[in-house]
C-alpha cells in the first residue's frame, strides 16, 4: 500500500498578480505523496506553504493563478470516468486535477480530498449552526455517492442545490436537507470528541470554544470520507493542551481510516508528532525532503539546519540559540534572480549558489534530497563567500 | 504623519478608477463655477426683467397662448419664444437669468455644505474622540443623547428649528466686486446662517458616532498602551495617536456629509426655509407651479444638484476605496 503514490505534484507554480508586482508564491514545486502516509510541509510565514495547500484544492482566487504544473491524483474510477471527455487529463490511473473543468473538480472536493483551515473562528459561517454546516458537507457527499462515480452523474448530482434550499437561505434554523444528514453530523461531532453533540449540533459557531470549533472543522472535513486530508496549520490558533487533543484526534482518525494527510505547519514539534515524511519549504520551493528521521536528524540543507537550531529546547536548559540571520525574503518577482533564494541568509553560501540554484537529484520518493550543492559534496570553509558580502543589499 | 502613504494609495486608486477622475473633474468644475461666479455670470442673477420672463433655454422654443389686445380687441394669439444666447438656460417668471442664478446657487450650496460639514465635524469629532477614549459613563451618556438626537429625522428637526428660530442670513462681501474686478454683480454673497448651523446641529451626531467607534478601537491598540506606559498624558494620547489614526474614516464620512448637507440645504430652500433666494432648491420651488409651461426653471437647478452630488459621491467612493476605512453605518454598528 505505502508504495502507492496517491498525489503527484510536478512543477507547480502559483503566482499572484498584484499592483505591486508579481508574487511567485509557489515556484516549480514538485512532490509525491503516498497513500496512507502523513506528509508534512514545514516552513515559515511567506514560504508559500498555505498557497500550496490551496493550489491542491484549486482554491486560488484572483489576483492569484496557477501558472504551470500538474497535480496528478490517482483514482481509477475517476480516470475511467473522465477519460472520454478529457483524455489529456488522464494518465493511466492518474487524473490531472488542473486539467479537468471546475464542476468535475468541485465534485471531488469534500469527497476525494478535503481541507482543514487554520483559524477555526473565521472558518465557520457565523450565522448558521455548526451542525447545519457539517450537514451540508454530509449532503454533498451523500449526493455524490448515491450515484456511481461518473463525471456526468457527479456534476449533475451535486443536487444539493439552490432550489431545495430557497427557504433555508432566508429562514435560519430549518436548513437540513434530511434528518439523516443531521444525525450524521451528530455522529461526526461525537467522533471528534464534542461532548453532548445532540445539543451542540444546533449551536452557532460563537457558542463554541476555539478548540471545539477546530474539532468541528475536523468533523466537517471528514464528512465526505475523503481520501486525502489537507490540514493547513490545523493547530496554530490553539493552546497547547487543546492542540494535543486535536493532534490526538487526527492521529486516531488517520489510523482508523488510513486516509492520507498533508499537514502544513510552521511548528516543527507538530511535524515530529504527526508525520512520516517531511518537506521543508522556503521562498516557494521545497528545499529539502525526506523521512522524518532524515530531515530532523540528518538535515543537509543549511536552512533546515538553521530552522532546527532556532528552536529553544524544552527538555534541556538553554544555551545561546543559533538563529538564521536576516529576514524571510519578499517573493516579489522583481527581487528574485536566478540564484538560490536562501543564499543571502545562508552561512555556507558559495559563489556557485549565486549563479544558479542547485537542482534536486533525480526523482524518487524514498530519497532524502536537498536542493543545495552541499547535498552532493561536503562543505569547505574556503569556498564560503566573505562575511560582509550581503551587507550592502540590506532590506528593507 | 505618514501622509505619504495615504497620498500614495490615493494616487494609485485614482489612476485605476475612471470614476474617481470623473468625480474630481465634476467637483473642480462646480468649485470653479462657485468661486468665479461673478466673472462667469452674464447678468446680475438678482436683476429682474419682466419683459423677458419665462424664456426657454437656448436651442429650445416655447409656444404659449396669450390674450392680447390687438387693435383694441382681445385676441388669443400664439406666442413663440426662442431661446437666446443672452439667457443660455432661459429665465424664470421674474425674467432672471437662470444661468447666472445657477452659478450663484453653487456658491450657496458649497458654502453651506462645506461650512456645515466643518462645524458638524469639529463638534462631532471632539465629542466622539473624548467619549470613545474615556469610555464608561461619559461614553454611555453621549451615546444615549445621540439616540435621542437620531430619533428626530434630520429634515424634520431642521424644519422645526429654522421655522421657529426664523432664517437668519449673513452677507459676505464678494472680494471680486469689492476689488472692482467686476461690476454689476451682487456685492455680497449671502450665507444662510441659521441653515448652516442647523444642518451642522442635526448632522454632528454622525461624526460623533464614527469618531467614537474609531477612538474605542484605537485606544485598545498597543501603541496607545505603550505610550501610556511611557507616561504620556491623555491629551497627548488623544491628539498624537487616537485622533490621527481615526482620521481616515472621518475624512470619508466628511466627504459624504458634504453631499448630504447640500441635499438637505436644497430641500430646506425648496420648502421655503432658507435665508437666501439665490439657491438651487429655491429656484426649483419657483418653477414648480410653472411645470406645464416653463419646465426649465425647475429642471436646470435640479440637474446642477445632481451633478454636484454625484461628483462628491464619486470622490467619496474614491477615498473609501483607496483608504479602506471600516465605517460604521456601512458595515456594523446598530442602535444598541
Amino acid at each position, binding site marked *: 500500500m505505502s508504495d502507492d503514490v496517491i498525489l503527484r505534484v510536478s512543477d507547480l507554480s502559483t503566482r499572484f498578480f498584484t499592483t505591486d508586482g508579481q508574487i511567485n508564491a509557489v515556484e516549480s514545486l514538485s512532490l509525491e505523496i503516498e497513500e496512507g502516509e502523513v506528509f508534512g510541509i514545514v516552513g515559515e510565514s511567506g514560504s508559500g506553504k498555505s498557497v500550496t495547500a*490551496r493550489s491542491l484544492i484549486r*482554491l486560488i482566487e484572483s489576483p492569484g493563478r496557477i501558472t504551470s504544473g500538474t497535480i496528478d491524483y490517482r483514482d481509477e474510477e475517476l480516470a475511467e470516468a473522465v477519460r472520454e471527455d478529457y483524455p489529456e487529463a488522464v494518465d493511466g490511473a492518474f487524473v490531472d486535477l488542473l486539467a479537468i473543468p471546475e464542476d468535475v473538480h*468541485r465534485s*471531488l*472536493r*469534500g469527497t476525494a480530498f478535503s*481541507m482543514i*483551515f487554520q*483559524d477555526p473562528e*473565521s472558518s*465557520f*459561517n*457565523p*450565522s448558521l449552526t455548526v451542525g447545519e454546516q457539517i450537514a*451540508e458537507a454530509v449532503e*454533498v*457527499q451523500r449526493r*455524490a455517492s448515491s450515484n456511481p462515480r461518473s463525471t456526468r452523474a457527479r456534476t449533475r448530482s451535486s443536487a*444539493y*442545490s*439552490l432550489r431545495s*434550499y430557497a427557504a433555508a*437561505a*432566508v429562514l*435560519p434554523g430549518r436548513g437540513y436537507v434530511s434528518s439523516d444528514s443531521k444525525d450524521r453530523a451528530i455522529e461526526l461531532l461525537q467522533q471528534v470528541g464534542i461532548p453532548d453533540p445532540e445539543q451542540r449540533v444546533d449551536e452557532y459557531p*460563537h457558542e463554541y470554544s476555539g478548540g471545539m470549533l477546530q474539532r468541528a472543522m475536523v468533523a466537517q472535513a471528514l*464528512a*465526505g470520507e475523503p481520501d486525502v486530508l489537507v490540514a493547513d496549520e490545523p493547530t496554530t490558533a490553539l493552546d497547547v493542551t487543546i492542540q494535543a487533543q486535536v493532534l490526538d484526534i487526527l492521529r486516531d482518525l488517520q489510523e482508523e481510516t488510513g486516509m492520507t494527510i498533508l499537514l502544513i505547519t510552521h511548528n516543527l514539534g507538530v511535524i515530529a508528532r504527526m508525520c512520516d515524511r517531511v518537506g521543508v519549504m522556503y521562498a516557494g520551493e521545497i528545499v529539502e525532503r525526506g523521512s522524518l528521521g532524515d530531515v530532523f536528524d540528518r538535515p543537509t540543507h543549511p536552512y533546515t539546519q538553521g530552522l532546527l537550531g532556532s528552536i529553544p529546547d524544552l527538555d534541556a536548559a538553554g544555551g545561546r540559540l543559533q538563529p538564521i540571520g536576516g529576514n524571510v525574503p519578499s517573493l516579489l518577482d522583481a527581487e528574485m534572480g536566478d540564484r538560490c533564494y536562501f543564499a543571502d541568509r545562508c552561512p555556507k553560501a558559495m559563489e556557485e549558489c549565486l549563479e544558479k540554484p542547485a537542482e534536486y537529484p533525480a526523482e524518487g520518493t524514498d530519497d532524502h534530497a536537498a536542493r543545495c550543492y552541499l547535498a552532493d559534496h561536503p562543505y569547505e570553509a574556503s569556498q564560503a563567500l566573505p562575511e560582509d558580502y550581503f551587507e550592502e543589499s540590506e532590506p528593507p | 504623519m505618514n501622509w505619504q502613504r495615504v497620498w500614495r494609495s490615493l494616487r494609485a486608486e485614482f489612476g485605476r478608477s475612471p470614476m474617481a477622475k470623473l468625480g474630481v473633474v465634476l467637483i473642480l468644475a462646480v468649485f470653479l463655477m462657485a468661486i468665479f461666479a461673478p466673472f462667469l455670470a452674464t447678468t446680475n442673477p438678482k436683476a429682474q426683467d419682466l419683459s423677458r420672463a419665462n424664456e426657454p433655454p437656448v436651442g429650445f422654443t416655447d409656444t404659449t397662448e396669450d390674450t392680447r389686445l390687438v387693435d383694441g380687441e382681445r385676441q388669443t394669439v400664439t406666442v413663440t419664444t426662442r431661446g437666446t444666447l443672452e439667457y443660455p438656460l432661459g429665465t424664470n417668471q421674474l425674467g432672471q437669468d437662470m444661468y447666472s442664478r445657477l452659478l450663484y446657487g453653487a456658491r450657496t450650496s458649497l458654502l453651506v455644505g462645506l461650512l456645515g460639514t466643518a462645524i458638524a465635524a469639529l463638534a462631532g469629532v471632539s465629542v466622539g474622540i473624548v467619549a470613545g477614549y474615556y469610555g464608561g459613563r461619559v461614553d454611555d451618556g453621549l451615546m*444615549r*443623547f445621540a439616540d*435621542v438626537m*437620531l*430619533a*428626530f*429625522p*434630520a*429634515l*424634520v428637526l431642521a*424644519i422645526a428649528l429654522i*421655522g*421657529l*428660530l426664523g432664517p437668519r442670513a449673513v452677507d459676505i462681501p464678494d472680494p471680486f466686486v469689492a476689488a472692482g474686478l467686476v461690476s454689476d454683480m451682487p456685492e455680497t454673497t449671502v450665507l444662510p446662517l441659521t441653515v448652516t448651523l442647523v444642518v451642522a446641529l442635526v448632522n454632528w451626531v454622525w461624526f460623533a458616532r464614527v469618531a467614537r467607534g474609531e477612538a474605542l478601537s484605537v485606544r485598545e491598540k498597543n501603541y496607545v498602551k505603550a505610550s501610556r506606559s511611557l507616561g504620556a498624558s491623555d491629551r497627548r494620547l488623544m491628539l498624537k495617536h487616537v485622533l490621527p489614526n481615526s482620521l481616515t474614516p472621518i475624512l470619508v464620512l466628511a466627504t459624504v456629509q458634504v453631499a448630504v448637507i447640500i*441635499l438637505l440645504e*436644497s*430641500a430646506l430652500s*425648496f420648502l421655503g426655509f432658507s435665508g437666501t433666494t439665490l439657491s438651487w432648491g429655491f429656484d*426649483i420651488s419657483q418653477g*414648480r407651479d410653472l411645470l406645464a409651461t416653463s419646465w426649465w426653471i*425647475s429642471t436646470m437647478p*435640479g440637474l446642477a*444638484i*445632481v451633478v454636484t*452630488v454625484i461628483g462628491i459621491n464619486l470622490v467619496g467612493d474614491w477615498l473609501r476605496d483607496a483608504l479602506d476605512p471600516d465605517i460604521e*453605518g*456601512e*458595515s*456594523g454598528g*446598530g*442602535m*444598541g
Partner: protein
Amino acid sequence: MRLTRFLLRRTAQGILVVWGVITLVFLLRFITPGSTIDFVAPLDASPELRQRLAEDLGLNKPIYVQYADYIVNLLQLDMGNSLLKGRPASDVIFARLPATLELAIAATIVAILFSIPLGVISATRRHQPVDYGATGFSLIGISTPNFWLGIMLILIVGVNLGWLPTSRRIIGFGPALELLIFEGRTIGIQVWFEHILLPSITLGTYFTALITRLTRNGMLEELGQSYVEVTRAKGLPETLVKYKHVLRNTMIPIITVLGLQMGTLIGGAVITESVFNWPGLGTLIIDAINSRDWPLIQGSLIVIGVGFVVINIVVDALYMYFNPQVTFE
C-alpha cells in the same frame, strides 16, 4: 426567549428615548424667540385678555410645572388643542397618520423589491454591463434630491404624458380595501394605486439606490471572508455558496444601515408629501410650523419620534434574527 428579553429591553430603552424626545420638544418652545402668548393672542388683545389666555394655557406657571402638566397630559394622549384647527391636536395628527404610513410602507416595499435582487446580480456579475448599469443607477439614485425627482416625474409622467395624477390622495388604502371586499369594486384600489405610485417611487428611489449599493458592496466584502473559502472547499455548489451563505450575512450590515437611514425616510416623506400635496404628517407639520401652532408642532414631532423608535426596534429585531451572534451589550 432571546427575542422576548431583547424586545423587553429594547422597549424600555425606547421609552427612555421617547422621554428624551418629549423633553426636547417641550424645551423647543422656550428657545424660540418671542413669547408663546404672542402667537396665541389676537394682535389687538388687551393686556388683561393676554393675561387670561396665558392663565388658561398655563403659561405663567413655572417651567417645571408646565413640564409635569405636559407629560401628564401626554400620558392621556392629550396634546392640547390645535390653535389652527381648534380641534384636539391628537385628532388632527392621527387623521393624517395613515397617509404618511401608506407612503412610507409603499416606498419601502418598492425599495426592497428592486434593490436586493439588483445588488445581488450586480455583485455576482462584476464588471459586466448589468453591474455597470446597477452601480450607475445607484450612484444617480443617491445623488438626486427626491423633491426634484418628484417634480420631474410630475413633469414627464403627469404633465407631458398625462398618464397619472400628480397630486392629492383621493382615497385611503383602508377605505379602498373595504370597497373591494364589501362591494367587490376595484375602482378604489385602482385610484389609490394611481395616486400613490409616483409619490412612492419618488420616496423609494433613494432607498432602492442605497440598498443596491449596500448589497453589492456587502456581498463583495463577504465573498472575501474565509468561511466562503471553506464552504467552497467542502464542495458546495457556487449558487449555494453565494445565496445561502453570503447573501444571508450580507443582510446584517444592510439592516444596520436601514435602521440608521430611517430618519432619512421620514424626512423624505415630509418633502415628498409637500411635492405631491399628500395630506400626511409632513404637510401638516410644515403648516403647523408656519403658523406656530404649538400643540400641533409638538404633537407631530413626538409622533414622528415615537414612530422612529418603533421602526428601530423592528429593525433591531430583524437584525437579531439574521445575526445569531448578537446579544445586545
